């Protein structure tokens, strides 16, 4: 499942055991069920693997990251950040350790001279990240499909997918 050079990667990060923190992996699961992505797009549930995701980031030419975020907005609201704005955001307001870890992955990729040409974060404001074993809150679960739609538009802008 290692990405070949030049791949586009859709990556969901977060902990599925912590309610809304599992938003990213839940998006990946939904995309897997649908099974309608072009073959050149790789789908990865990154969990909370931090630095262990480095090879994936190094090999990706373009990357979309799904994650729960805290922008102090109404639960379920979507936030899109691109390229240089991402590490700065995670660096200032890390929701949890996996985001600190992911900032380090991006910096490490840069240090090794191998990072994606384009990277987009599709974040969704969480409602609840405290309930152990809990699933997504209703507001965040409802944001999965819009987040997927947003990623399609992003892929189209990268010319990965034909226009509908």
């Amino acid at each position, binding site marked *: *499942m*290692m990405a070949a050079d030049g791949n586009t990667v859709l990556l969901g990060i977060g*902990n*599925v*055991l*912590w309610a809304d923190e599992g938003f990213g992996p839940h998006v990946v699961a939904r995309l897997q069920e649908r099974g309608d992505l072009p073959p050149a797009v790789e789908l*990865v*549930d*990154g*969990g*909370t*693997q*931090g*630095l*262990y*995701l*480095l*090879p994936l980031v*190094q090999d990706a030419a373009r990357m979309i990251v799904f994650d729960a975020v805290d922008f102090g907005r109404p639960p379920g609201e979507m936030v899109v950040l691109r390229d240089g704005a991402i*590490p700065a955001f995670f660096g200032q307001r*890390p929701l*949890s*350790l*996996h985001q*600190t*870890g992911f*900032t*380090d992955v*991006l*910096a*490490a990729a*840069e*240090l*090794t*001279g191998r990072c994606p040409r384009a990277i987009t974060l599709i974040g969704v404001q969480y409602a609840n990240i405290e309930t*152990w*074993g809990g699933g997504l809150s209703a507001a965040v679960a409802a944001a999965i499909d819009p987040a997927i739609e947003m990623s399609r538009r992003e892929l189209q802008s990268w010319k990965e997918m034909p226009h509908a």
Partner: protein
Amino acid sequence: MTQTKTPNGFTLDDSGRRIALDPVTRIEGHMRVEVNIDGSNVIRNAVSVGTMWRGLEPIMKGRDPRDAWAFVQRICGVCTGVHALASIRAVENALAIQIPTNANTIRNIMHLALYVHDHLVHFYHLHALDWVDVVSALSASPKATSELQQSISPWPHSSPGYFKDVQDRVRKLVGSGQLGPFRNGYWGHATYKLPPAANLMAVAHYIEALNFQREIVKIQAVFGGKNPHPMWLVGGVPSAINMHATGSSGASINVERMNLVASVAAQSLAFIEQVYIPDLLAIASFYPEWFKHGGGLASQNLLSYGEFPTRANDDSNASLMLPRGAIVNGDLKTLHEVDLRDPAHVQEFVPHSWYRYPDDKAGLHPWDGLTEVDFRLGAKTRQTPDKIEAFDESAKYSYIKAPRWKGHAMETGPLARMVIAYAGGNARVKELVDGALGKLGLPLTALFSTLGRTAARGLEAQWAAEQLVEQVAYLQATIKGGNESTANTEKWSPTTWPATAKGVGFCEAPRGALGHWLHIKNQKIENYQCVVPTTWNASPRDAQGNIGAYEAALLGVPLADPKKPLEILRVIHSFDPCLACATHVIGPDGGELTVARVL
């Protein structure tokens, strides 16, 4: 009374200034450390606080035991494989499921590859910057660095031009203000001792190790079908062997993939022999005092559950490559038997933990374990409406329970495993340990220290890479002999199970002894308890007042500057706590002095 003596022989004095380091991790290692320092800034009291309830156990109840591994592997981002392995072993133990030889070998290969990977990442990316000053590396002469490199290792990346290039890249990163992994370091701290050339060499290898780790994970992907989150299977391994298959179709193991695994194993060993070990010895030689500080429990009590069965379904010490056992009171001549099923061996206590037992003074074996939260702060807690400045360690003060082996607080991890293997007569381990200590001119007892712990991890990485090469060759030979079986599905159907069963799964994770205990009732999980390595090492006090490994290791450590407690990071990081932690240092008046980052 400010001075007390613990039953396990340590003197605590809480009269001095208190410093709190509060990480914000949400993973297994979510913890905080508080210390009291005397007038000379030497640590005289230490308090290890687990600040988050893991809460895993209740969510396991009612689940299918065959799926348990998939849930427990999400406990922690870094330790996924070890929880999965402990879980499937616990289920197999409960249901008396025998696994095929190939499954045992493949699990050994995946687990050995994890040791290599984890130890390498820990040394370079989580611990090295406690010893290596990145900013000093910018002033190094590339030529001097090249000479240093060539004097300690045949590693080919050693030209002045190569080090100049690395230096330029780091300078660019530092100059951009986006320090990335190098932010929040105590650069320029008085206790950094490496000359600039050694700093630059280590930074170059920091980057090389980042690039190299991508190779090692390929082993998990080959046998686990994917990475991250490789697949596991009760009764064996999920990947089928088909040496005649070609290409990358399905998840089967074929000739091409076995060759890839063999190649990665050989590269891993070369990297450890030519980069990791020479760096470890070079860095250690500049810090002799750290072979004295931070020993804590290490010179007394060490615990290992044992790992790497050479024979499938045999976890006796005759079969285990690294033995199971306990060393007590520093007596290296006696390796005590450890029985995870015996209710008197492993017990967890909660008088200082935020849990409720029917009898707070009594310990409970994990099979009878309870996870009922009881958050209460002691009367001497210092707090503002917003935050707690200092916990009261005379009362309950941690979400971590206090595990004890026959009543003893124990240290677990690579140091424990290497010393127990050494004491148990493992010839290769003895050779590696004696060789490294000989080069540094140190006695065996020097292992019982901060850098001893760090050195033991490096030597274990070398041992693991050697075994990895051998296990891959063994798997290839077994398959060539016609045995392609990887799973036993005889008891896959729950209808074959007894109405009730209980089991225990052991696993020596890279950072120490891990156990999963479970009860199965009517085909579902009735009770599930994990005792993880960090629980042993970061343990709070018990009913008798015995302190745990972190608490003991911090005692006597001098701080050059209490506002920049780099020394505390050195000690705690030497145990390989689970993940990165951001820390806050709080002054005596409760004001936040500085923010440290524990990498």
